[in-house]
């Protein structure tokens, strides 16, 4: 379905935002035709209770991402729970990336199911009609991923408005925001549809009687600065005027990842020290594998431990250490995680979720080489491990700590925070 709202004047820049509808669920419905037309709740794995994505049919029944399976099944008794297939999603996104890059030289994969295509360089001669181009993109996506896959496409003169256009448009449609109609879209959009405004900021805006972004036009800069501070007052003003907030500039100016982390939520609460140690080592090894593959090293190590969701178990613990030197070895990072940060936790609650990260990353080419013999020896060992992992896969060789335990393998997230690693 397409809406015929064509631009009345040519746009200075032409950006398309492509958003695949209900990606996780739709791709499973494409793969398993017997799931088509059925309300689906996608869970991370068999036995998991958090719905990480819902199909179009489930969304119509009121199922929202993040709801618990039991609540969702009360709302929609016919809801079918299916496990996510992350490898399948990632490969599909890589195929989409190849498709988009064949259409324009300027493509930005924004998340696993979203991308921006800058049509400006090929607008004049190759694709003079953006709406027709968008229709072709929809057809080519179906040709690439399958006939069940639909997408929204938003067209505008910047990424902020293009994304807004695709968020507010009906499933499978194309919507264009121009300077002439942008106020209409900005005034009618819910804050949930606006990229850059999270739930807390939306709540604060509404509490100040700014019920939509357009209402910001009617308050002064001093009012915004007083309530939102010097940074957010400027960002809110920019968004109300249809300009890209600072958030989008971060996409452009990060030549390498600043941080690599990994978290896992277990099936049950645990206080078993051997289990905790093995999980922390497992996660640390994945972080080191990724940063080494990207030729990075970091100097801030973070550990996060989380309790359950019930009021009596809802606790969290966070600690980090910022080092004077950069590290890129599993043994060294694990030392700081397990022997330095973990002992500072008072073990006051059982753990369900574990998180480790290595931050303040820099390319190793920007760093001086260590002359310490022990470090050089460890580096040679890691170089050998890198080669083995490259050939036989991560965890083909690992510590005895992980023997006879289920290994936590890398997986992609919907936000695709590690896209620089995934698309290397």
């Amino acid at each position, binding site marked *: 379905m397409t809406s015929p709202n064509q631009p009345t004047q040519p746009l200075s820049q032409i950006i398309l935002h492509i958003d695949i509808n209900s990606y996780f669920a739709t791709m499973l419905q*494409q*793969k398993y035709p*017997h799931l088509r037309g059925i309300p689906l709740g996608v869970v991370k794995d068999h036995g998991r209770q958090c719905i990480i994505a819902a199909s179009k049919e489930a969304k119509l029944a009121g199922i929202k991402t993040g709801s618990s399976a039991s609540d969702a099944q009360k709302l929609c008794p016919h809801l079918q729970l299916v496990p996510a297939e992350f490898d399948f999603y990632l*490969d599909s996104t890589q195929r989409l990336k190849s498709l988009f890059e064949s259409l324009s030289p300027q493509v930005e994969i924004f998340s696993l199911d979203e991308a921006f295509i800058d049509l400006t360089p090929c607008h004049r001669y190759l694709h003079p009609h953006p709406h027709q181009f968008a229709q072709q993109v929809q057809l080519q996506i179906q040709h690439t*991923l399958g006939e069940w896959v639909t997408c929204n496409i938003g067209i505008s003169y910047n990424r902020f408005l293009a994304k807004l256009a695709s968020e507010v448009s009906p499933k499978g449609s194309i919507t264009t925001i121009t300077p002439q109609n942008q106020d209409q879209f900005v005034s009618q959009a819910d804050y949930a549809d606006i990229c850059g405004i999270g739930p807390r900021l939306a709540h604060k805006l509404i509490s100040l009687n700014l019920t939509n972004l357009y209402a910001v036009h009617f308050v002064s800069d001093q009012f915004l600065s007083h309530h939102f501070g010097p940074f957010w007052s400027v960002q809110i003003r920019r968004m109300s005027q249809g300009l890209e907030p600072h958030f989008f500039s971060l996409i452009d100016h990060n030549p390498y990842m600043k941080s690599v982390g990994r978290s896992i939520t277990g099936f049950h609460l645990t206080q078993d020290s051997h289990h905790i140690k093995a999980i922390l080592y497992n996660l640390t090894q994945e972080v080191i594998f990724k940063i080494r593959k990207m030729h990075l090293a970091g100097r801030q190590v973070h550990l996060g431990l989380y309790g359950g969701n019930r009021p009596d178990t809802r606790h969290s613990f966070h600690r980090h250490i910022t080092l004077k030197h950069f590290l890129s070895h599993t043994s060294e990072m694990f030392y700081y995680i397990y022997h330095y940060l973990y002992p500072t936790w008072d073990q006051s609650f059982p753990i369900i979720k574990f998180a480790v990260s290595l931050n303040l990353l820099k390319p190793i080419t920007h760093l001086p080489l260590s002359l310490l013999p022990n470090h050089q020896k460890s580096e040679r060992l890691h170089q050998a491990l890198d080669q083995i992992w490259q050939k036989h896969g991560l965890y083909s060789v690992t510590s005895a700590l992980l023997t006879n335990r289920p290994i936590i393998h890398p997986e992609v997230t919907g936000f695709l925070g590690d896209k620089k690693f995934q698309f290397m």
Partner: protein
Amino acid sequence: MVTPINEPIQVLVHFKHARLIPLRFLWKNRSYHVDNITTQYHTHDGAIRHLHFAVQSNGNLYQLSYNLSHHSWTLTSIHTPN
């Protein structure tokens, strides 16, 4: 219902426009005609790449996997409608 199989199979394929298109597969001395390919995708484990196909035959869905390093086919699982 999903039934894991993980058994080697023989597959007759059509190689067209640099793409493998399974036409028929032989499992336990029975030949299955591929009615439709619902999707295909790659995975890799280290340097070993696998090409996965979800194919329909007689109303059931079969997952076939082609190991691009060893050039071998595996029937991974069968999905039958509930």
